[in-house]
């Protein structure tokens, strides 16, 4: 146990094996994401194009439609998975999930508000979404602190559910008031990867880099914090500062993911849950495993969303909620829930 803690962010052998297995799986899912779609370009035709056959139609579909959404899914999955793990560690609550706690809804509402006020630029949207995510984070944590819900995971989730409900209805209200942006805003109620482009992804990179730097800085103190506030203080860390930095990182990640793909719920719940099942509760190990697990969930859900109702597509957010809700019930029912 102690040896593991000394290892910092360096993965040990068991973690290494799990990472290798998950990475192989992720590569396979990414390949499937390139091969499968709602259109006429089937797996055989896509594969023929990939191994060098000339087929302009298949080339277009793969390069301009399926590759961008796969890459966006990759980044969004990582961001949401990691954000979930961080939020759960900092609140010491296995149910803390950006989608459930109103962080995603805060981001979506901020974007919708900006759209109504006449904004369109891609880069502006990311900042706005991150600001909204930050506000959502602080709101729900503030409520939890006031009512002493920090010790009761379910109460925190209830506060989050109330905030999510409030923000979603405010977003719907904007939709009612200003139909000018209605079609644009509808996208911000249920997320989707369809129609996302590479330039959306490039615009995210600066803030994601900041988030990564923050996470590298706080991973070790955060693990110490999970041993209790006194232990962390005793080891020379400042719990208040750590919490604030983690929340900034979560807001950056969730804001970036939401600005690109809309609110996608439950990824931040299911992914850290699976990561803990594979690697135990240490945040430094969970964070590593969230990197392949997040995209695995998002891209798999995206593939299913393309195939279920072809030639149309389902919104991705609907599918992640379908996969995630049973996990939420399972976590709530598990006896050892509040021990994180």
């Amino acid at each position: 146990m102690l040896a593991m803690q000394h290892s910092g962010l360096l993965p040990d052998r068991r973690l290494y094996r799990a990472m290798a297995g998950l990475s192989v799986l992720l590569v396979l899912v990414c390949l499937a994401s390139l091969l499968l779609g709602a259109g006429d370009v089937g797996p055989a035709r896509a594969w023929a194009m990939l191994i060098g056959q000339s087929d302009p139609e298949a080339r277009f579909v793969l390069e301009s439609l399926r590759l961008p959404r796969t890459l966006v899914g990759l980044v969004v999955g990582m961001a949401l998975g990691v954000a979930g793990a961080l939020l759960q560690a900092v609140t010491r609550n296995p149910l803390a999930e950006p989608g459930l706690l109103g962080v995603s809804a805060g981001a979506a509402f901020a974007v919708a508000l900006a759209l109504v006020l006449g904004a369109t630029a891609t880069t502006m949207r990311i900042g706005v979404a991150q600001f909204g995510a930050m506000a959502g984070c602080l709101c729900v944590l503030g409520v939890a602190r006031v009512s002493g819900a920090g010790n009761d995971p379910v109460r925190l989730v209830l506060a989050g559910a109330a905030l999510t409900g409030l923000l979603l209805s405010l977003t719907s209200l904007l939709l009612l008031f200003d139909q000018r942006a209605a079609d644009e805003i509808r996208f911000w109620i249920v997320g989707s990867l369809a129609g996302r482009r590479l330039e959306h992804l490039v615009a995210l990179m600066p803030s994601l880099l900041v988030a990564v730097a923050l996470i590298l800085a706080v991973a070790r103190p955060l693990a110490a914090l999970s041993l209790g506030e006194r232990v962390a203080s005793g080891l020379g860390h400042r719990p208040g500062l750590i919490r604030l930095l983690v929340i900034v990182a979560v807001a950056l990640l969730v804001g970036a993911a939401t600005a690109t793909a809309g609110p996608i719920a439950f990824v931040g719940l299911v992914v850290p849950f699976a990561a803990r099942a594979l690697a135990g509760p240490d945040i430094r190990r969970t964070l590593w495993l969230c990197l392949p697990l997040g995209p695995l969930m998002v891209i798999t859900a995206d593939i299913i969303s393309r195939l279920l109702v072809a030639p149309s597509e389902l919104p991705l957010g609907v599918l992640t909620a379908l996969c995630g809700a049973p996990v939420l019930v399972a976590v709530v029912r598990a006896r050892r829930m509040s021990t994180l």
Partner: protein
Amino acid sequence: MGTGRFCDKVMGGTLLAVAMLALMPLSAWAERSVETAYGVVTVPEAPQRVVTLHEGALDVAVATGVTPLGAVTTRGGDNVARYLAPHFDDIAIVGVVREINLEAVLALEPDLILAPPQLAEAQYRLLSRMAPTVVPRNEGLDPEAWRSETRLFAQALGREAEGEAALDDVDARAAELAERMAADERPSAVLVRWMPQGPMVMSEALFTAGLLRAAGVAIHDAGLVREGVPHSDPLSFENLSRVDADWLFLATLNEEGREALEAAKASPAFARLDVVARDRVVPVDGQLWTSATGPLAAQAILDQLDAALSP
């Protein structure tokens, strides 16, 4: 035996009805009756205080020279539809189509209410206590339903002749466009609403679709819209080529149709459509093209079609 008795009953009923109809002019000489979805309704001879709870009814009223006191908003707006707005200085808004503000209707003291075919029965009961309420039969999604609606509303307003004239004007205008169109082959067209995650294809059974067909445009839904549903789900970008046609009408609920077109063009799958390369994408007003009905709406749509298609 049984049939005989049934016939007697029917005969008796008919006789009674005829007798009542014959007596009616005596008891209410300044009233007329119209056949609605909720049976025969007696309306005033010359309604003075008309409230319309249906965009199509408002259109018919204006087309036949009646100015209603109150109306519901257009879908996706907070006032009457833009194409009708110049006809009013000030019209009371009594709610949205789905949610009628009954108190606002009552406050206007109407003597005739023109309602949409999908009006719920509970609402009808309340409204019909305020004033005679005319509800057309619900024909589902039918491109020609607006004609019988127009006739019914015109009749209720006591303006049958004006209503017929408005219908004839639309037919004449459509025929004139169709004649010009016949010179070249009937162009194909698709009507979509643009969404960030993909376009929704509008049904072939919409009012606008019927109108465009009459004007010689072969509008189709690419086989994507189920029967009885006004539009498809957002189409996958991978299948966008299905909406390729001679013309693509891009309906948006905002006025800045050009902006929506630019947003669509930013999508690589849209930019490579043949119809985009030929610059035959026409941004149109969704309020008018996907929501309105009536003779004035028809004229406005045909005008825009004419402007778009004539070189």
